[in-house]
């Protein structure tokens, strides 16, 4: 399903796309992010990094999903290593993916705060496996290309 950028969740997703594009340019030197598809589904990826933004009026989860290979490539870029370097550890990959989620969530918070909504930033959580929604949760997502690396961005909100 294709959606338009009209609801608060979609506005947050727009901010997340901008923040991830900035991070791609500044820290990973992979250029602008290219959005290939927007939907209201959890994307099919095997790893997810989440950061909660908790405010007086609303709370959201900012998420990034990517495959094992994509996580490895991003970590290698962050750490100035080759993607196939056997010295790149799982711990370093998780750290890099969590830090990416942390950076972009902080930037989303900054953008949202500039519009008057004060929110607190949680700590990053990296999980293996496809995330599932709880009852009452809603997701909007964007599948993207960061250079040649596929990933998905998502915003989870409570429908209440």
């Amino acid at each position, binding site marked *: 399903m294709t959606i338009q950028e009209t609801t608060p969740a979609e506005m947050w997703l727009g901010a997340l796309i901008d923040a991830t594009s900035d991070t791609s340019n*500044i*820290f990973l030197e992979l250029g602008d992010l290219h959005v290939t598809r927007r939907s209201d589904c959890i994307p099919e990826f095997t790893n997810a990094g989440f950061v909660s933004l908790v405010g007086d009026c609303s709370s959201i989860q900012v998420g990034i999903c990517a495959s094992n290979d994509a996580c490895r490539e991003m970590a290698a870029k*962050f*750490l100035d290593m080759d993607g196939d370097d056997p010295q790149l550890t799982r711990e370093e990959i998780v*750290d890099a993916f969590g*830090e990416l989620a*942390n950076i972009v969530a*902080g930037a989303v918070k900054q953008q949202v705060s500039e519009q008057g909504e004060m929110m607190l*930033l949680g700590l990053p959580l990296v999980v293996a496996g496809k995330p599932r929604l709880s009852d009452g949760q809603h997701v909007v997502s964007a599948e993207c290309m960061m250079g040649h690396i596929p990933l998905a961005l998502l915003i989870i909100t409570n429908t209440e």
Partner: protein
Amino acid sequence: MKILIVDDSKTMRMIIMRTLRKTNLGDHTVVQAGDGREALQVIASESPDVVVSDWNMPEMTGLQLLQQLRGEDNQVHFGFITSESTLSMREQAAEAGACFFVTKPFTPESLEASLSPVLV
């Protein structure tokens, strides 16, 4: 010039080091610590000219680190690089004696603009 980078994320320490290399801040050496407590040991042994610290870290936060240093009358140049940047955090940092406060994602230009005044 010796710069101490304090962050519990190896990724972020690498990003800061790489960004520093792209600035025009001149020759510098970098030492690292993974949290505030480890940073105290490195400061004692390495005597850095500048400390660049994360805000949230296990064991001892960046703010606690700065407060302890100033409590010991250590006046090393100290600043924060962090994802979150509220007015309250900036006020606490300034009150504790921080010289700069940088929000991620930062560029070589923004990092240089924050660091260069304290390195004069």
